């Protein structure tokens, strides 16, 4: 597994995510809490029965953005380790698409960091899902990532 400062784990995978193993990997004797988020495929979308989902990513950028989220939550919250894994390709109903585990000495930081991590992932990480139904497929509605409005201009020499 790829490791980074803090021994965090950030991965894009095409196989089922081993959620139990990941929740175990982040815990250490000095911790008192692990908070996990398990996002999985719902059986309907806007009351239409879903058959399955297909996820794709801009993989190099997605991993960069996931690592940035890890750095942000280490700065904002007193946490120990983070594991953040997103699955790509075809996923069936009930299969985990994203899993985040955060360990910390105390629960409040772990809850807050895990919530911030999934909310930020859904807004900034370039991953897309296509929803397949009985009568066709559509790209899911998404969120616009925050992008700079204009490039900063170099100051003219005075």
């Amino acid at each position, binding site marked *: 597994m790829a490791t980074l400062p803090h021994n965090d784990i950030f991965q894009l995978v095409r196989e089922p995510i081993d959620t139990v193993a990941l929740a175990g990997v982040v815990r250490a004797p000095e911790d008192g809490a692990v908070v996990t988020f398990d996002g999985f495929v719902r059986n309907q979308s806007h009351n239409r029965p879903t058959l399955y989902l297909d996820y794709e*990513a*801009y993989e190099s*950028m997605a991993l960069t953005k996931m690592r940035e989220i890890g750095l942000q939550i280490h700065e904002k919250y007193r946490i120990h380790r983070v594991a953040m894994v997103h699955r790509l390709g075809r996923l069936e109903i009930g299969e985990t698409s994203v899993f985040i585990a955060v360990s910390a000495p105390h629960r409040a930081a772990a809850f807050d960091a895990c919530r911030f991590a999934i909310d930020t992932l859904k807004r900034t990480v370039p991953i897309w899902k*296509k929803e397949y139904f009985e009568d066709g497929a559509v790209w899911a509605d998404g969120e616009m*990532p925050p992008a700079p409005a204009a*490039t900063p201009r170099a100051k003219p020499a005075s």
Partner: protein
Amino acid sequence: MPPVSQTIRVTVLFFGRLKDLAGHAEDSAEFSDATTIEQLFALYAARYPELAKYRSSVVASRNQEFAAWDTPLRSGDEVAFLPPVSGG
């Protein structure tokens, strides 16, 4: 002395719905004059009119970082056009 004109060659990536509309995931483009990301998108929007309809919901990146539309391109850049993200 005027700057020497150089060819700017960039890789262009399309994802999600934009990939479907452009008909391919990856392309390369060449310019002999200064060009921005906005102008690059306009080039493809002219070629694939369906793309133009989505302009207001597209976010661009340059070398894996979100980028403003007025960002000038440099040779070797990897530019991607990203529809609203829907991971999770």
